[in-house]
């Protein structure tokens, strides 16, 4: 077990040392004479079901399979387990099972992947059952000891009480006996109205070490005898490494080895990373850039623009009526073309992983959003079977979707494999990180709206042209070639459904996949679809001579949940009362990741190009709110991420390479540019929606619509810096 999350007031650092290296599978099976097997954690404490370990001092260790990357799921998931477990929250700590342990135990902890705002919503059911199962076993153990029926016993705060006799005991005291019991086949979960811990804004469990420098991220991993590697992959995606002149850096300080990494990259391994990086900079490298070196942002834009034409093939994602015919016969038509660029995740901590390879074992320490995918990458790159591999997860210095990919893990193993017995930490420079992202996909969108003579919207044709993430990363998930995720926010139904009723609707996607590798970037396709749709909604409202909010409301009668969040922001921002002098408002709504969200912004604009954002209001209906304090932080954070991309982001391509190389060319918002986000939570219950991503969708369109209100100018492409629009 990789214990790294200290209890709230425990300042003990997570120390990775020889113990962790040699420990391997820390879980032990303890089979007493004839009895059922007791599974023990590394410290010998018994498991009460797979999700809970109870120590003699009543400390409860909750297993977390998903990854913590700042989004707070570690705390939220622990709350879900603890709610049913009825344990003392102040004695809760958490640990990550390793993917190797999970595989060895038939995936007892389920899915490890942490993306798509799925951490809580996809595991809430079985983790709550895990807590309930342990509670039933602990109560049963106490009842057995007292020789009373379990039904006469209750548990609260880790104390079990037998009311008729007034006896009490604690979880720690009965844990050994409970661990020997057979888990109940089925357990009943609490009615949400009885929740005490779920819904409470309890403090995160992982904060203290993040304020003292003690928290260990991948970049901080230290192993005995470890060396450090710096890498350069061919800057043109799809290109290859031709040659490098090792002799030129032979005498450089600290350099131990120069290694080829696959067909495309070269790494320098040295005593320190600084030495490795300095030598790598000096290493003459020749690339075989291939045909992709001819690709530029201009050539991509041209190719995507061609896909907007009706004559080109496209997949239909949502349709009713006959939009083309209705548009042809309409009294009035409105048309606009929008575009959205590549974006880099630019996690604060650049990609990195530490690998130790020996002939019969390969272990990796890294931050990953998907422990199991990282594990699969280790197997593949090392060539060793599952029982000889493992991945030890550490804290992520940001993920946002980037660390769901395993390219950096694979590279670390490929390097370590060339130095058996020596642990090697591979760290990407920020420049490497900018050059080898898995970018938010590039798209354009042509929208045509049509009105009848009474200014009723009778048709909408939404035609996307551009890149599919699934085509590149999960081709098996394509449906007859179509990428269903491309329609996030404008889909017919599901967890990202369109929120308007238009009598004649056609939503389609001309898939065009440039060579730049796409990835899941916080909010994924909701980002551009919400900008396109919500800014165009404003254009339609204007064409109809109607208020943007009223215009939307009229189309949302059949979408009460979409409408409720829109109404919530409208009320909070005071849509029906005039904005302060010189201040203008914009509004937007979308559904994504199972949650309904809306946003509104108040901005002022000087000289037509200097924006000051005064207020942001956001609302979300995620069904249930597990931790309102963390929801508030995720919503605010999603606006910082989304507005950074709107104002400063955008990755461009020249000669097949990404042009932006660091935060000087790919800037991010600072504190002076960001107002407080006022979050309105309107959980309506009965479903579980995600939190980390959905609200990013409304960040940009709310501000762009406010910009139009202020200036009368429509901005139809991102980033704003390309149009010399910036923060005041």
């Amino acid at each position, binding site marked *: 077990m990789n214990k790294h999350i200290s209890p709230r007031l425990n300042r003990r650092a997570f120390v990775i040392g020889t113990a962790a290296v040699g420990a391997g599978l820390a879980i032990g099976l303890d089979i007493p004479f004839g009895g059922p097997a007791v599974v023990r954690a590394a410290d010998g404490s018994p498991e009460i079901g797979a999700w809970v370990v109870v120590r003699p001092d009543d400390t409860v260790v909750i297993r977390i399979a998903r990854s913590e990357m700042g989004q707070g799921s570690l705390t939220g998931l622990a709350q879900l387990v603890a709610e049913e477990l009825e344990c003392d929250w102040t004695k809760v700590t958490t640990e990550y099972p390793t993917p190797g342990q999970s595989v060895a135990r038939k995936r007892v902890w389920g899915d490890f992947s942490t993306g798509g705002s799925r951490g809580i919503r996809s595991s809430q059911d079985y983790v709550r059952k895990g807590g309930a199962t342990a509670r039933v076993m602990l109560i049963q153990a106490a009842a057995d000891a007292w020789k009373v029926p379990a039904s006469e016993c209750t548990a609260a705060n880790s104390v079990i009480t037998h009311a008729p006799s007034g006896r009490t005991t604690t979880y720690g005291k009965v844990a050994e006996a409970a661990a020997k019991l057979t888990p109940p086949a089925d357990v009943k979960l609490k009615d949400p109205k009885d929740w005490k811990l779920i819904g409470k804004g309890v403090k995160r469990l992982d*904060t203290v070490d993040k304020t*003292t420098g003690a928290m260990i991220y991948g970049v901080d991993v*230290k192993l005995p005898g470890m060396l450090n590697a710096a890498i350069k992959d061919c800057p043109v995606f799809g290109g290859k490494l031709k040659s490098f002149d090792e002799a030129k850096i032979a005498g450089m300080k600290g350099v131990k080895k120069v290694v080829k990494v696959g067909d495309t990259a070269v790494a320098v391994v040295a005593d320190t990373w600084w030495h490795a990086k300095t030598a790598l900079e000096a290493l003459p490298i020749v690339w075989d850039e291939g045909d992709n070196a001819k690709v530029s942002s201009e050539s991509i834009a041209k190719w995507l623009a061609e896909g907007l034409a009706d004559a080109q093939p496209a997949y239909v994602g949502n349709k009713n009526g006959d939009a083309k015919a209705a548009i042809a016969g309409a009294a009035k038509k409105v048309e606009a073309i929008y575009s959205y660029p590549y974006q880099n995740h630019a996690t604060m*901590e650049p990609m990195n992983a530490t690998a130790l390879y020996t002939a019969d074992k390969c272990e990796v320490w890294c931050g990953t959003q998907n422990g199991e995918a990282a594990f699969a990458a280790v197997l593949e790159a090392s060539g060793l079977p599952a029982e000889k591999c493992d991945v030890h997860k550490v804290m992520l210095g*940001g993920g946002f979707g980037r660390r769901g990919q395993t390219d950096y893990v694979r590279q670390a193993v490929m390097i370590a494999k060339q130095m058996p017995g020596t642990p090697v930490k591979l760290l990407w420079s920020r420049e490497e990180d900018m050059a080898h992202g898995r970018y938010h996909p590039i798209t354009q969108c042509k929208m045509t709206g049509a009105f009848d003579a009474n200014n009723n919207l009778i048709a909408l044709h939404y035609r996307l042209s551009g890149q599919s993430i699934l085509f590149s990363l999960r081709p098996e998930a394509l449906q007859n070639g179509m990428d269903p995720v491309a329609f996030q926010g404008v889909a017919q139904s599901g967890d990202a459904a369109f929120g308007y009723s238009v009598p004649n609707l056609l939503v389609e996607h001309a898939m065009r996949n440039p060579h730049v590798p796409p990835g899941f970037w916080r909010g994924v396709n909701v980002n551009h679809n919400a900008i396109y749709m919500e800014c165009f909604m404003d254009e339609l409202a204007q064409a109809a001579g109607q208020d943007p909010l009223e215009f939307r409301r009229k189309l949302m009668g059949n979408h009460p949940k979409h409408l409720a969040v829109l109404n919530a922001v409208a009320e909070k921002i005071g849509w029906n009362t005039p904005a302060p002098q010189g201040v203008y408002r914009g509004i937007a709504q979308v559904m994504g990741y199972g949650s309904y969200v809306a946003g509104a912004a108040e901005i002022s604009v000087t000289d037509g190009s200097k924006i000051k954002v005064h207020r942001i209001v956001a609302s979300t209906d995620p069904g249930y709110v597990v931790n309102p304090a963390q929801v508030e932080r995720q919503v605010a954070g999603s606006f*910082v991420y989304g507005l950074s991309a709107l104002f400063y982001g955008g990755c461009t391509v020249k000669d097949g390479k990404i042009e932006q190389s*660091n*935060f000087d060319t790919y800037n991010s*918002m600072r504190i*002076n540019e960001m107002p407080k986000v006022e979050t309105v939570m309107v959980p309506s219950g009965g479903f579980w929606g995600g939190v980390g991503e959905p609200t990013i969708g409304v960040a940009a369109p709310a501000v762009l619509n406010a910009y139009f209100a202020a200036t009368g100018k429509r901005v139809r492409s991102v980033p704003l810096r390309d149009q010399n629009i910036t923060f005041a």
Partner: protein
Amino acid sequence: MANLTINGKTLTLDVEPDTPLLWAIRENAGLTGTKYGCGIAQCGACTVHIDGVAMRSCGISVSEAEGKKITTIEGLASGDTLHKVQDAWIAQDVPQCGYCQSGMIMAVAALLNEKPKPTDADIDEAITNICRCGTFQQVREAIHTIASA
């Protein structure tokens, strides 16, 4: 070889004079609380105090730092007593991923040293660290909480 005084201790480190202080701190002194984010003095993740002033350690060479008093996030607390900024960060649950927070905390501690009751405008001017998770409003609230204590 260089002599660096970090968190009250003078260390003799096997490091070239032109090495960025950040890497001497992380790799030679072994103090990994100070983070690498950009290496070009843009993000602030590597912020430390040099003679009490917040500086981005990736942009300072070891030779420039010799003879100066360097404080890293590990040296901010006095023994077991956390610095008031750390306390406020815990009370306010400021960090998300936390990667930028060592630098953020060092920048804020220096600001409060200079201006114990900073205005919003003071904060806007002095705190220019990048936080990709977007913790700015908690950062601001925590600073005001300290200032009004």
